Protein backbone atom coordinates (compact mmCIF):
# COMPACT_ATOMS: atom_id res chain seq x y z
CA UNK A 1 0.00 0.00 0.00
CA UNK A 2 1.33 3.38 -0.93
CA UNK A 3 1.20 5.97 1.80
CA UNK A 4 0.10 9.40 0.69
CA UNK A 5 1.21 12.48 2.60
CA UNK A 6 -1.41 13.38 5.19
CA UNK A 7 -2.54 16.99 5.38
CA UNK A 8 -4.62 18.44 8.16
CA UNK A 9 -7.11 21.08 7.01
CA UNK A 10 -9.51 23.17 9.03
CA UNK A 11 -12.74 23.68 7.09
CA UNK A 12 -15.43 26.11 8.20
CA UNK A 13 -19.06 26.29 7.16
CA UNK A 14 -20.92 29.54 6.84
CA UNK A 15 -24.38 30.41 5.74
CA UNK A 16 -27.82 31.50 6.78
CA UNK A 17 -29.77 29.76 9.52
CA UNK A 18 -31.37 26.66 8.13
CA UNK A 19 -29.44 26.67 4.84
CA UNK A 20 -28.25 23.16 5.62
CA UNK A 21 -24.70 23.55 6.99
CA UNK A 22 -25.06 20.91 9.67
CA UNK A 23 -26.93 18.62 7.31
CA UNK A 24 -24.12 18.77 4.73
CA UNK A 25 -21.54 17.89 7.38
CA UNK A 26 -23.65 15.09 8.76
CA UNK A 27 -24.19 13.67 5.28
CA UNK A 28 -20.48 13.84 4.50
CA UNK A 29 -19.17 12.54 7.83
CA UNK A 30 -21.84 10.03 8.83
CA UNK A 31 -23.85 9.46 5.68
CA UNK A 32 -27.00 10.52 7.52
CA UNK A 33 -29.78 13.01 6.92
CA UNK A 34 -32.51 14.15 9.27
CA UNK A 35 -35.68 15.80 8.07
CA UNK A 36 -35.83 17.84 11.24
CA UNK A 37 -32.22 18.55 12.00
CA UNK A 38 -31.91 20.06 15.47
CA UNK A 39 -29.96 23.29 15.60
CA UNK A 40 -26.42 22.26 16.20
CA UNK A 41 -25.63 21.27 19.80
CA UNK A 42 -22.81 19.29 21.27
CA UNK A 43 -20.16 18.98 18.55
CA UNK A 44 -17.44 21.57 18.20
CA UNK A 45 -16.06 19.94 15.14
CA UNK A 46 -16.17 16.65 13.31
CA UNK A 47 -13.35 15.06 11.40
CA UNK A 48 -13.36 13.11 8.17
CA UNK A 49 -10.47 11.89 6.08
CA UNK A 50 -10.51 11.72 2.30
CA UNK A 51 -7.87 10.51 -0.13
CA UNK A 52 -7.31 12.12 -3.50
CA UNK A 53 -4.65 11.17 -6.06
CA UNK A 54 -1.69 12.85 -4.37
CA UNK A 55 -2.67 13.30 -0.73
CA UNK A 56 -4.79 12.21 2.17
CA UNK A 57 -6.64 15.15 3.69
CA UNK A 58 -7.92 15.06 7.22
CA UNK A 59 -10.69 17.62 7.43
CA UNK A 60 -11.41 19.20 10.76
CA UNK A 61 -14.88 20.55 10.07
CA UNK A 62 -16.13 23.45 12.16
CA UNK A 63 -19.85 24.09 12.30
CA UNK A 64 -20.83 27.57 13.52
CA UNK A 65 -22.53 26.37 16.71
CA UNK A 66 -25.19 29.00 16.07
CA UNK A 67 -22.87 31.87 16.96
CA UNK A 68 -23.52 33.59 13.65
CA UNK A 69 -27.20 33.90 14.48
CA UNK A 70 -26.87 37.28 16.17
CA UNK A 71 -23.81 38.31 14.20
CA UNK A 72 -21.62 37.02 17.00
CA UNK A 73 -19.32 34.65 15.18
CA UNK A 74 -15.89 34.79 16.80
CA UNK A 75 -12.88 35.57 14.59
CA UNK A 76 -11.21 32.44 15.96
CA UNK A 77 -13.63 30.49 13.85
CA UNK A 78 -11.77 31.51 10.68
CA UNK A 79 -8.27 31.43 12.14
CA UNK A 80 -6.03 29.12 10.24
CA UNK A 81 -8.91 27.79 8.15
CA UNK A 82 -7.71 26.21 4.91
CA UNK A 83 -11.16 26.00 3.35
CA UNK A 84 -14.65 27.40 3.73
CA UNK A 85 -17.99 26.21 2.40
CA UNK A 86 -20.53 28.99 2.12
CA UNK A 87 -24.00 27.51 2.00
CA UNK A 88 -27.26 29.00 0.81
CA UNK A 89 -30.71 27.53 0.24
CA UNK A 90 -31.71 27.62 -3.44
CA UNK A 91 -35.25 28.47 -2.31
CA UNK A 92 -34.13 31.63 -0.58
CA UNK A 93 -32.71 34.73 -2.30
CA UNK A 94 -32.00 36.26 1.10
CA UNK A 95 -29.83 33.27 2.01
CA UNK A 96 -27.92 33.87 -1.25
CA UNK A 97 -27.39 37.52 -0.28
CA UNK A 98 -26.20 36.38 3.13
CA UNK A 99 -23.78 33.98 1.42
CA UNK A 100 -22.32 36.89 -0.53
CA UNK A 101 -21.79 38.85 2.66
CA UNK A 102 -19.96 35.84 4.15
CA UNK A 103 -17.73 35.77 1.11
CA UNK A 104 -16.86 39.43 1.68
CA UNK A 105 -16.21 38.73 5.36
CA UNK A 106 -13.86 35.88 4.46
CA UNK A 107 -12.04 37.99 1.89
CA UNK A 108 -11.45 40.47 4.71
CA UNK A 109 -10.70 38.16 7.64
CA UNK A 110 -9.73 34.87 6.13
CA UNK A 111 -6.33 33.71 5.11
CA UNK A 112 -5.00 34.67 1.70
CA UNK A 113 -4.99 31.21 0.08
CA UNK A 114 -8.26 30.05 1.61
CA UNK A 115 -10.14 27.67 -0.68
CA UNK A 116 -13.76 28.83 -0.86
CA UNK A 117 -16.67 26.78 -2.10
CA UNK A 118 -20.20 28.02 -2.69
CA UNK A 119 -22.91 25.42 -2.15
CA UNK A 120 -26.46 25.99 -3.38
CA UNK A 121 -28.14 23.45 -1.10
CA UNK A 122 -31.51 21.68 -1.16
CA UNK A 123 -31.21 21.10 -4.91
CA UNK A 124 -33.48 18.05 -4.49
CA UNK A 125 -36.41 20.39 -3.93
CA UNK A 126 -35.96 22.16 -7.28
CA UNK A 127 -35.77 18.81 -8.99
CA UNK A 128 -39.23 17.84 -7.75
CA UNK A 129 -40.83 21.25 -7.71
CA UNK A 130 -38.99 23.62 -10.09
CA UNK A 131 -41.18 26.56 -9.10
CA UNK A 132 -39.65 26.47 -5.61
CA UNK A 133 -36.25 27.43 -6.94
CA UNK A 134 -35.61 31.13 -6.27
CA UNK A 135 -31.87 31.31 -6.94
CA UNK A 136 -30.72 30.65 -10.46
CA UNK A 137 -27.77 28.26 -10.82
CA UNK A 138 -26.23 30.36 -13.62
CA UNK A 139 -26.35 33.48 -11.51
CA UNK A 140 -24.61 31.68 -8.64
CA UNK A 141 -22.03 30.24 -11.03
CA UNK A 142 -21.30 33.70 -12.43
CA UNK A 143 -20.92 35.12 -8.93
CA UNK A 144 -18.59 32.27 -7.97
CA UNK A 145 -16.43 32.81 -11.08
CA UNK A 146 -16.11 36.52 -10.38
CA UNK A 147 -15.00 35.89 -6.81
CA UNK A 148 -12.68 32.94 -7.29
CA UNK A 149 -14.93 30.40 -5.58
CA UNK A 150 -16.01 27.11 -6.96
CA UNK A 151 -19.66 26.33 -7.06
CA UNK A 152 -21.88 23.30 -6.82
CA UNK A 153 -25.53 22.72 -6.17
CA UNK A 154 -25.89 20.10 -3.47
CA UNK A 155 -28.46 18.11 -1.60
CA UNK A 156 -27.78 16.87 1.89
CA UNK A 157 -31.03 14.98 1.54
CA UNK A 158 -30.17 12.87 -1.51
CA UNK A 159 -26.38 13.18 -1.05
CA UNK A 160 -26.06 14.63 -4.55
CA UNK A 161 -22.70 16.40 -4.97
CA UNK A 162 -21.95 16.28 -1.25
CA UNK A 163 -18.87 14.06 -1.43
CA UNK A 164 -17.84 15.76 -4.66
CA UNK A 165 -17.84 19.08 -2.88
CA UNK A 166 -15.44 17.90 -0.18
CA UNK A 167 -13.23 15.95 -2.62
CA UNK A 168 -12.96 18.97 -4.87
CA UNK A 169 -11.86 21.06 -1.89
CA UNK A 170 -9.29 18.37 -1.01
CA UNK A 171 -7.92 18.59 -4.55
CA UNK A 172 -7.78 22.38 -4.50
CA UNK A 173 -5.99 22.79 -1.17
CA UNK A 174 -2.49 24.19 -1.64
CA UNK A 175 -0.07 21.27 -1.36
CA UNK A 176 2.97 23.06 -0.01
CA UNK A 177 3.03 23.22 3.76
CA UNK A 178 2.66 26.79 4.95
CA UNK A 179 6.03 28.17 6.07
CA UNK A 180 6.39 27.41 9.76
CA UNK A 181 7.11 30.48 11.87
CA UNK A 182 10.11 30.59 14.18
CA UNK A 183 9.31 28.15 16.96
CA UNK A 184 7.24 25.01 16.75
CA UNK A 185 3.90 24.79 18.50
CA UNK A 186 3.25 22.84 21.64
CA UNK A 187 0.57 20.23 22.11
CA UNK A 188 -1.59 20.35 25.18
CA UNK A 189 -3.04 17.09 26.25
CA UNK A 190 -3.90 15.24 29.39
CA UNK A 191 -0.50 13.61 29.22
CA UNK A 192 2.46 15.75 30.09
CA UNK A 193 5.17 15.67 27.46
CA UNK A 194 8.13 14.98 29.67
CA UNK A 195 8.70 13.39 33.01
CA UNK A 196 8.84 15.80 35.84
CA UNK A 197 12.32 16.56 36.99
CA UNK A 198 13.34 14.64 40.06
CA UNK A 199 16.48 15.65 41.77
CA UNK A 200 19.09 12.95 41.87
CA UNK A 201 19.25 12.59 45.63
CA UNK A 202 18.54 9.53 47.77
Amino acid at each position, binding site marked *: MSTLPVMQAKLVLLGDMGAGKSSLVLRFVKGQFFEYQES*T*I*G*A*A*FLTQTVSVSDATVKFEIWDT*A*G*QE*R*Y*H*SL*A*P*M*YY*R*GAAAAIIVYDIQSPSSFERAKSWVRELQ*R*QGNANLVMALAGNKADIAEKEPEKRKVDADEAQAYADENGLFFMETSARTAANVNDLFYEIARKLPRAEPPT*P*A*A*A*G*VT*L*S*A*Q*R*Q*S*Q*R*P*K*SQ*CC
Partner: protein
Amino acid sequence: MDQEYDAIILGTGLKECLLAGLLSVDGKKILHMDRNSYYGGESASLNLKQLYEKFKPGQELPPHYGRWQDWNFDMVPKFMMGNGLLVRVLVHTGVHKYLEFKAVDGSYVVKGGKTYKVPANDKDALRSSLMGMFEKYRARSFFIFVQDYEKDDPRTHKGYDLDVITSRELFKEYGLDPNTVDFIGHALALQTDDSFMDQPARKMVMAVKLYSESLARFETNSPYIYPLYGLGELPQGFARLSAVYGGTYMLAKPDAEVVYDEAGKACGVSSEGETAKAKYVVGDPSYFPGKVRRVGQVVRAICILSHPIPNVGDSHSVQIIIPQKQTGRQSDMYVFGCSFAHNVCAKGKYLAFVSTAVETANPTAELIPGLQLLGAIDEYFVQVSDVMEPVNDGSEDGCYISKGYDATTHFQSTVEDVLEMYKKITGKDVNLDADDPAATAGQEQ
Protein backbone atom coordinates in the same frame (compact mmCIF):
# COMPACT_ATOMS: atom_id res chain seq x y z
CA MET B 1 -34.36 37.50 23.39
CA ASP B 2 -37.65 37.60 25.33
CA GLN B 3 -37.00 34.23 26.91
CA GLU B 4 -36.09 32.72 30.21
CA TYR B 5 -32.57 31.55 30.93
CA ASP B 6 -30.76 29.95 33.84
CA ALA B 7 -28.09 32.59 33.65
CA ILE B 8 -27.41 35.75 31.72
CA ILE B 9 -23.75 36.60 31.45
CA LEU B 10 -22.62 40.15 30.72
CA GLY B 11 -19.25 40.83 29.17
CA THR B 12 -17.21 38.35 27.17
CA GLY B 13 -13.94 38.64 29.06
CA LEU B 14 -11.97 35.48 29.73
CA LYS B 15 -13.56 35.00 33.16
CA GLU B 16 -17.11 35.39 31.88
CA CYS B 17 -16.52 33.11 28.89
CA LEU B 18 -14.93 30.47 31.07
CA LEU B 19 -17.97 30.53 33.35
CA ALA B 20 -20.30 30.45 30.36
CA GLY B 21 -18.50 27.38 29.08
CA LEU B 22 -18.53 25.55 32.40
CA LEU B 23 -22.20 26.35 33.07
CA SER B 24 -23.30 25.40 29.55
CA VAL B 25 -21.53 22.05 29.79
CA ASP B 26 -23.51 21.54 33.02
CA GLY B 27 -26.67 21.90 30.95
CA LYS B 28 -27.54 25.43 32.04
CA LYS B 29 -29.34 27.62 29.54
CA ILE B 30 -27.15 30.66 28.97
CA LEU B 31 -27.56 34.01 27.29
CA HIS B 32 -24.24 35.77 26.89
CA MET B 33 -24.12 39.44 25.89
CA ASP B 34 -21.48 42.11 25.39
CA ARG B 35 -21.77 45.83 24.82
CA ASN B 36 -18.86 45.65 22.35
CA SER B 37 -19.00 44.19 18.87
CA TYR B 38 -16.00 41.98 19.67
CA TYR B 39 -15.25 39.19 22.13
CA GLY B 40 -12.97 39.62 25.12
CA GLY B 41 -14.20 42.64 27.09
CA GLU B 42 -11.33 44.04 29.08
CA SER B 43 -9.18 41.02 28.22
CA ALA B 44 -9.71 41.24 24.45
CA SER B 45 -7.01 41.31 21.83
CA LEU B 46 -7.80 44.29 19.64
CA ASN B 47 -6.84 44.55 16.00
CA LEU B 48 -5.04 47.67 14.78
CA LYS B 49 -8.26 49.41 13.77
CA GLN B 50 -9.87 48.76 17.15
CA LEU B 51 -6.68 49.84 18.91
CA TYR B 52 -6.64 53.17 17.09
CA GLU B 53 -10.35 53.68 17.71
CA LYS B 54 -9.64 53.23 21.41
CA PHE B 55 -6.44 55.21 21.81
CA LYS B 56 -6.31 57.58 18.83
CA PRO B 57 -9.89 58.03 17.67
CA GLY B 58 -10.20 59.68 14.27
CA GLN B 59 -6.57 59.13 13.36
CA GLU B 60 -5.64 57.35 10.13
CA LEU B 61 -3.88 54.01 10.38
CA PRO B 62 -0.25 54.37 9.30
CA PRO B 63 0.07 52.48 5.98
CA HIS B 64 3.45 50.96 6.90
CA TYR B 65 1.69 48.79 9.48
CA GLY B 66 0.13 46.73 6.71
CA ARG B 67 -3.26 45.05 7.08
CA TRP B 68 -5.08 46.02 10.29
CA GLN B 69 -6.48 42.48 10.47
CA ASP B 70 -3.01 41.06 11.03
CA TRP B 71 -2.61 42.69 14.45
CA ASN B 72 -3.83 41.38 17.79
CA PHE B 73 -2.92 43.55 20.76
CA ASP B 74 -3.58 41.98 24.14
CA MET B 75 -5.27 44.47 26.44
CA VAL B 76 -4.29 42.42 29.49
CA PRO B 77 -0.89 40.94 28.65
CA LYS B 78 -0.14 37.72 30.49
CA PHE B 79 1.40 34.37 29.69
CA MET B 80 -0.03 30.95 30.47
CA MET B 81 1.81 28.70 32.93
CA GLY B 82 2.44 25.44 31.12
CA ASN B 83 1.21 23.43 34.07
CA GLY B 84 -1.09 26.06 35.51
CA LEU B 85 -4.81 26.15 36.21
CA LEU B 86 -5.74 27.67 32.87
CA VAL B 87 -4.08 24.85 30.93
CA ARG B 88 -5.85 22.36 33.15
CA VAL B 89 -9.22 24.00 32.51
CA LEU B 90 -8.48 24.09 28.77
CA VAL B 91 -7.72 20.38 28.73
CA HIS B 92 -10.63 19.59 31.06
CA THR B 93 -13.09 21.31 28.71
CA GLY B 94 -11.41 20.31 25.45
CA VAL B 95 -11.09 23.96 24.45
CA HIS B 96 -7.34 23.43 23.89
CA LYS B 97 -8.32 21.74 20.63
CA TYR B 98 -9.67 25.01 19.21
CA LEU B 99 -6.38 26.80 19.74
CA GLU B 100 -2.73 26.60 18.85
CA PHE B 101 -0.02 27.40 21.35
CA LYS B 102 3.64 28.20 21.28
CA ALA B 103 6.13 27.93 24.07
CA VAL B 104 7.53 31.25 25.24
CA ASP B 105 11.25 31.37 24.42
CA GLY B 106 12.70 32.76 27.60
CA SER B 107 12.15 34.11 31.08
CA TYR B 108 14.50 36.76 32.47
CA VAL B 109 14.98 38.83 35.57
CA VAL B 110 16.70 42.20 36.00
CA LYS B 111 19.39 42.63 38.63
CA GLY B 112 21.63 45.68 38.91
CA GLY B 113 20.59 46.92 35.48
CA LYS B 114 21.45 43.62 33.72
CA THR B 115 19.06 40.94 32.49
CA TYR B 116 19.67 37.35 33.56
CA LYS B 117 18.00 34.12 32.57
CA VAL B 118 15.85 32.89 35.44
CA PRO B 119 17.30 29.69 36.92
CA ALA B 120 14.41 27.46 37.87
CA ASN B 121 15.74 24.17 39.14
CA ASP B 122 18.72 22.62 40.87
CA LYS B 123 20.75 22.24 37.66
CA ASP B 124 20.04 25.77 36.42
CA ALA B 125 21.02 27.12 39.81
CA LEU B 126 24.54 25.78 39.47
CA ARG B 127 24.95 27.31 36.02
CA SER B 128 23.48 30.72 36.75
CA SER B 129 25.67 33.81 36.86
CA LEU B 130 23.02 35.42 39.01
CA MET B 131 24.56 33.99 42.17
CA GLY B 132 28.00 33.54 43.65
CA MET B 133 29.60 30.12 44.10
CA PHE B 134 28.45 29.24 47.62
CA GLU B 135 25.06 30.81 47.12
CA LYS B 136 24.51 28.53 44.12
CA TYR B 137 24.81 25.46 46.32
CA ARG B 138 22.46 26.90 48.90
CA ALA B 139 19.93 27.73 46.20
CA ARG B 140 20.32 24.26 44.77
CA SER B 141 19.40 22.68 48.13
CA PHE B 142 16.35 24.90 48.29
CA PHE B 143 15.26 23.87 44.76
CA ILE B 144 15.71 20.21 45.59
CA PHE B 145 13.50 20.67 48.65
CA VAL B 146 10.81 22.34 46.53
CA GLN B 147 11.00 19.83 43.67
CA ASP B 148 10.69 16.87 46.00
CA TYR B 149 8.02 18.36 48.25
CA GLU B 150 4.79 16.37 48.18
CA LYS B 151 1.95 17.49 50.40
CA ASP B 152 0.93 13.95 51.26
CA ASP B 153 4.41 12.58 51.89
CA PRO B 154 5.79 13.81 55.24
CA ARG B 155 9.24 12.45 54.38
CA THR B 156 9.57 15.21 51.80
CA HIS B 157 8.68 17.93 54.29
CA LYS B 158 12.14 17.98 55.88
CA GLY B 159 10.52 18.84 59.19
CA TYR B 160 8.92 22.07 57.96
CA ASP B 161 5.22 22.73 58.32
CA LEU B 162 4.58 25.06 55.40
CA ASP B 163 1.37 26.30 56.95
CA VAL B 164 3.31 27.56 59.94
CA ILE B 165 6.79 28.57 58.82
CA THR B 166 6.89 31.85 56.88
CA SER B 167 8.73 32.33 53.60
CA ARG B 168 11.20 34.59 55.35
CA GLU B 169 11.96 31.88 57.93
CA LEU B 170 12.23 29.16 55.32
CA PHE B 171 14.69 31.19 53.23
CA LYS B 172 16.71 31.76 56.40
CA GLU B 173 16.82 28.00 57.04
CA TYR B 174 18.53 27.64 53.66
CA GLY B 175 20.79 30.60 54.34
CA LEU B 176 19.77 32.38 51.13
CA ASP B 177 20.92 35.96 50.66
CA PRO B 178 18.50 38.82 49.92
CA ASN B 179 19.22 38.82 46.17
CA THR B 180 18.41 35.14 45.84
CA VAL B 181 15.32 35.57 47.96
CA ASP B 182 14.31 38.40 45.70
CA PHE B 183 14.49 36.43 42.48
CA ILE B 184 12.91 33.32 43.98
CA GLY B 185 10.00 35.33 45.36
CA HIS B 186 9.49 37.55 42.34
CA ALA B 187 10.83 35.75 39.27
CA LEU B 188 9.89 32.19 40.23
CA ALA B 189 7.05 32.41 42.73
CA LEU B 190 5.89 35.45 40.73
CA GLN B 191 4.70 37.37 43.76
CA THR B 192 3.94 40.94 42.73
CA ASP B 193 5.13 42.47 46.03
CA ASP B 194 6.85 41.38 49.27
CA SER B 195 3.77 40.62 51.37
CA PHE B 196 4.34 36.87 50.91
CA MET B 197 7.53 37.03 53.02
CA ASP B 198 5.72 37.02 56.34
CA GLN B 199 2.92 34.70 55.29
CA PRO B 200 3.02 30.89 55.56
CA ALA B 201 5.52 29.54 53.04
CA ARG B 202 3.16 27.09 51.36
CA LYS B 203 1.92 29.58 48.80
CA MET B 204 5.46 30.54 47.77
CA VAL B 205 6.74 26.96 47.70
CA MET B 206 3.84 25.75 45.58
CA ALA B 207 4.31 28.70 43.24
CA VAL B 208 7.99 27.83 42.73
CA LYS B 209 7.00 24.21 42.19
CA LEU B 210 4.42 25.25 39.61
CA TYR B 211 7.09 27.28 37.83
CA SER B 212 9.59 24.44 37.64
CA GLU B 213 7.00 21.84 36.68
CA SER B 214 5.68 24.15 33.98
CA LEU B 215 9.20 24.55 32.69
CA ALA B 216 9.59 20.78 32.52
CA ARG B 217 6.28 20.21 30.79
CA PHE B 218 7.34 21.56 27.40
CA GLU B 219 11.11 21.36 27.79
CA THR B 220 11.70 24.93 26.75
CA ASN B 221 13.45 27.85 28.35
CA SER B 222 10.40 29.31 30.00
CA PRO B 223 7.45 27.89 31.90
CA TYR B 224 5.03 29.76 29.68
CA ILE B 225 2.98 29.16 26.59
CA TYR B 226 1.07 31.65 24.48
CA PRO B 227 -1.77 31.19 21.98
CA LEU B 228 -1.35 32.10 18.33
CA TYR B 229 -3.36 35.25 17.47
CA GLY B 230 -3.13 36.50 21.04
CA LEU B 231 -4.85 35.98 24.36
CA GLY B 232 -8.18 37.14 22.94
CA GLU B 233 -8.52 33.66 21.46
CA LEU B 234 -9.02 32.24 24.95
CA PRO B 235 -12.37 33.90 25.72
CA GLN B 236 -13.48 33.11 22.18
CA GLY B 237 -12.60 29.45 22.69
CA PHE B 238 -14.67 29.18 25.85
CA ALA B 239 -17.51 31.13 24.24
CA ARG B 240 -17.51 28.63 21.43
CA LEU B 241 -17.66 25.81 23.96
CA SER B 242 -20.72 27.45 25.49
CA ALA B 243 -22.32 27.91 22.06
CA VAL B 244 -21.66 24.30 21.15
CA TYR B 245 -23.64 23.38 24.27
CA GLY B 246 -26.49 25.65 23.29
CA GLY B 247 -25.40 29.02 24.70
CA THR B 248 -26.81 32.05 22.87
CA TYR B 249 -24.40 34.84 21.93
CA MET B 250 -25.29 38.48 21.32
CA LEU B 251 -22.59 41.06 20.79
CA ALA B 252 -22.90 44.81 20.20
CA LYS B 253 -25.54 45.45 22.88
CA PRO B 254 -24.33 48.82 24.22
CA ASP B 255 -27.39 49.37 26.37
CA ALA B 256 -27.47 45.97 28.10
CA GLU B 257 -28.52 46.57 31.68
CA VAL B 258 -29.29 44.37 34.67
CA VAL B 259 -32.95 44.34 35.75
CA TYR B 260 -33.77 43.95 39.46
CA ASP B 261 -36.99 42.84 41.14
CA GLU B 262 -38.67 44.74 44.03
CA ALA B 263 -36.44 42.98 46.52
CA GLY B 264 -33.37 44.21 44.68
CA LYS B 265 -32.45 40.80 43.32
CA ALA B 266 -31.20 40.53 39.74
CA CYS B 267 -33.87 38.87 37.61
CA GLY B 268 -32.84 39.60 34.05
CA VAL B 269 -31.24 41.92 31.54
CA SER B 270 -32.80 44.50 29.26
CA SER B 271 -31.56 45.77 25.92
CA GLU B 272 -33.21 47.58 23.04
CA GLY B 273 -36.61 47.48 24.69
CA GLU B 274 -36.56 43.74 25.34
CA THR B 275 -36.02 41.94 28.61
CA ALA B 276 -34.61 38.47 29.05
CA LYS B 277 -35.30 36.78 32.38
CA ALA B 278 -32.82 34.73 34.34
CA LYS B 279 -32.35 33.12 37.75
CA TYR B 280 -29.16 35.13 38.23
CA VAL B 281 -26.80 37.41 36.36
CA VAL B 282 -23.05 36.98 36.02
CA GLY B 283 -20.68 39.60 34.67
CA ASP B 284 -17.63 41.79 34.81
CA PRO B 285 -17.59 44.80 37.16
CA SER B 286 -18.40 47.32 34.42
CA TYR B 287 -21.97 46.01 34.20
CA PHE B 288 -22.68 46.47 37.92
CA PRO B 289 -22.18 50.14 38.85
CA GLY B 290 -22.72 50.65 42.58
CA LYS B 291 -21.97 47.01 43.39
CA VAL B 292 -18.20 47.15 42.98
CA ARG B 293 -15.30 49.02 44.52
CA ARG B 294 -11.86 49.93 43.28
CA VAL B 295 -9.01 47.96 44.85
CA GLY B 296 -6.13 49.21 42.76
CA GLN B 297 -4.95 50.36 39.38
CA VAL B 298 -2.70 48.79 36.78
CA VAL B 299 -0.82 50.72 34.10
CA ARG B 300 0.06 48.96 30.86
CA ALA B 301 2.01 50.19 27.85
CA ILE B 302 1.58 48.49 24.49
CA CYS B 303 4.65 49.05 22.32
CA ILE B 304 5.29 48.36 18.65
CA LEU B 305 8.92 47.56 17.85
CA SER B 306 10.77 46.73 14.64
CA HIS B 307 13.35 44.55 16.41
CA PRO B 308 13.39 41.89 19.10
CA ILE B 309 13.75 43.09 22.69
CA PRO B 310 17.51 43.58 23.24
CA ASN B 311 19.66 41.39 25.52
CA VAL B 312 17.38 38.36 25.60
CA GLY B 313 18.96 36.33 22.83
CA ASP B 314 16.72 37.67 20.02
CA SER B 315 13.76 35.82 21.51
CA HIS B 316 10.45 36.16 19.72
CA SER B 317 8.65 35.73 22.99
CA VAL B 318 9.97 36.60 26.37
CA GLN B 319 9.15 37.74 29.85
CA ILE B 320 11.40 40.06 31.84
CA ILE B 321 10.68 40.73 35.48
CA ILE B 322 11.98 43.81 37.24
CA PRO B 323 11.63 43.04 40.95
CA GLN B 324 10.46 45.97 43.07
CA LYS B 325 13.79 46.25 44.91
CA GLN B 326 15.57 46.98 41.62
CA THR B 327 13.52 50.12 41.08
CA GLY B 328 12.76 51.06 44.69
CA ARG B 329 9.07 50.40 44.14
CA GLN B 330 6.45 48.49 46.11
CA SER B 331 5.47 46.24 43.24
CA ASP B 332 7.21 44.45 40.38
CA MET B 333 7.23 45.54 36.77
CA TYR B 334 6.70 43.09 33.93
CA VAL B 335 7.81 43.16 30.34
CA PHE B 336 6.23 40.75 27.86
CA GLY B 337 7.37 40.34 24.31
CA CYS B 338 5.90 38.51 21.37
CA SER B 339 6.11 38.86 17.61
CA PHE B 340 4.80 38.11 14.16
CA ALA B 341 5.72 34.49 14.91
CA HIS B 342 2.60 34.46 17.09
CA ASN B 343 0.37 36.06 14.45
CA VAL B 344 -0.10 39.16 16.56
CA CYS B 345 1.51 41.72 14.27
CA ALA B 346 2.72 42.39 10.74
CA LYS B 347 5.74 40.48 9.51
CA GLY B 348 8.99 41.85 10.90
CA LYS B 349 7.28 43.61 13.82
CA TYR B 350 7.41 42.84 17.52
CA LEU B 351 5.07 43.74 20.34
CA ALA B 352 6.20 44.53 23.85
CA PHE B 353 4.04 45.20 26.88
CA VAL B 354 5.18 46.84 30.08
CA SER B 355 2.90 46.71 33.10
CA THR B 356 2.84 47.32 36.81
CA ALA B 357 0.54 48.27 39.67
CA VAL B 358 0.07 52.05 39.85
CA GLU B 359 1.83 53.68 42.81
CA THR B 360 2.01 57.37 41.92
CA ALA B 361 -0.01 60.13 40.31
CA ASN B 362 2.05 59.76 37.12
CA PRO B 363 1.63 56.12 36.08
CA THR B 364 3.22 56.49 32.64
CA ALA B 365 6.47 57.68 34.21
CA GLU B 366 6.44 54.62 36.47
CA LEU B 367 6.90 52.43 33.40
CA ILE B 368 10.22 54.03 32.38
CA PRO B 369 12.49 51.27 33.80
CA GLY B 370 10.58 48.75 31.69
CA LEU B 371 10.38 50.89 28.56
CA GLN B 372 14.14 51.45 28.76
CA LEU B 373 14.73 47.74 28.21
CA LEU B 374 13.04 47.82 24.83
CA GLY B 375 15.42 49.87 22.66
CA ALA B 376 13.78 52.01 19.97
CA ILE B 377 9.97 52.05 20.21
CA ASP B 378 8.04 52.80 17.01
CA GLU B 379 4.82 53.72 18.78
CA TYR B 380 3.26 53.10 22.15
CA PHE B 381 -0.14 53.29 23.80
CA VAL B 382 -0.63 53.62 27.54
CA GLN B 383 -3.69 52.54 29.46
CA VAL B 384 -4.48 52.87 33.15
CA SER B 385 -7.15 50.42 34.32
CA ASP B 386 -9.00 50.33 37.59
CA VAL B 387 -9.01 46.93 39.23
CA MET B 388 -12.54 46.50 40.58
CA GLU B 389 -13.92 43.94 42.95
CA PRO B 390 -17.50 43.04 43.95
CA VAL B 391 -18.81 44.37 47.26
CA ASN B 392 -21.17 41.39 47.84
CA ASP B 393 -20.85 37.69 47.15
CA GLY B 394 -23.99 37.37 45.03
CA SER B 395 -25.95 35.12 47.38
CA GLU B 396 -28.48 37.88 48.18
CA ASP B 397 -28.68 40.00 45.06
CA GLY B 398 -28.18 37.29 42.43
CA CYS B 399 -25.27 39.22 40.92
CA TYR B 400 -22.12 37.17 40.51
CA ILE B 401 -19.42 39.66 39.65
CA SER B 402 -15.87 38.86 38.62
CA LYS B 403 -12.83 40.73 39.88
CA GLY B 404 -10.83 42.90 37.50
CA TYR B 405 -7.59 41.57 35.97
CA ASP B 406 -4.68 42.09 38.34
CA ALA B 407 -1.05 42.84 37.56
CA THR B 408 0.15 39.21 37.80
CA THR B 409 2.06 37.73 34.88
CA HIS B 410 -0.05 34.64 34.41
CA PHE B 411 -3.61 33.37 34.79
CA GLN B 412 -3.49 31.62 38.13
CA SER B 413 -5.51 34.24 40.04
CA THR B 414 -7.81 34.70 37.02
CA VAL B 415 -8.86 31.06 37.01
CA GLU B 416 -9.04 30.90 40.81
CA ASP B 417 -11.59 33.72 40.72
CA VAL B 418 -13.64 31.82 38.14
CA LEU B 419 -13.52 28.57 40.11
CA GLU B 420 -14.68 30.44 43.22
CA MET B 421 -17.51 32.06 41.30
CA TYR B 422 -18.51 28.71 39.87
CA LYS B 423 -18.67 27.29 43.38
CA LYS B 424 -20.76 30.21 44.66
CA ILE B 425 -23.16 29.80 41.75
CA THR B 426 -23.52 26.02 41.63
CA GLY B 427 -22.44 24.96 45.13
CA LYS B 428 -19.90 22.52 43.68
CA ASP B 429 -16.26 22.41 42.63
CA VAL B 430 -14.94 21.87 39.13
CA ASN B 431 -13.08 18.58 39.28
CA LEU B 432 -10.01 19.22 37.21
CA ASP B 433 -7.97 16.29 38.48
CA ALA B 434 -9.88 13.66 36.61
CA ASP B 435 -8.65 14.90 33.26
CA ASP B 436 -5.14 16.09 33.74
CA PRO B 437 -3.55 13.97 36.44
CA ALA B 438 -0.14 15.20 35.34
CA ALA B 439 -0.72 18.59 36.83
CA THR B 440 -0.39 18.71 40.58
CA ALA B 441 1.03 22.02 41.60
CA GLY B 442 -1.56 24.35 40.16
CA GLN B 443 -4.46 23.54 42.41
CA GLU B 444 -2.67 24.24 45.64
CA GLN B 445 -2.13 27.90 44.88
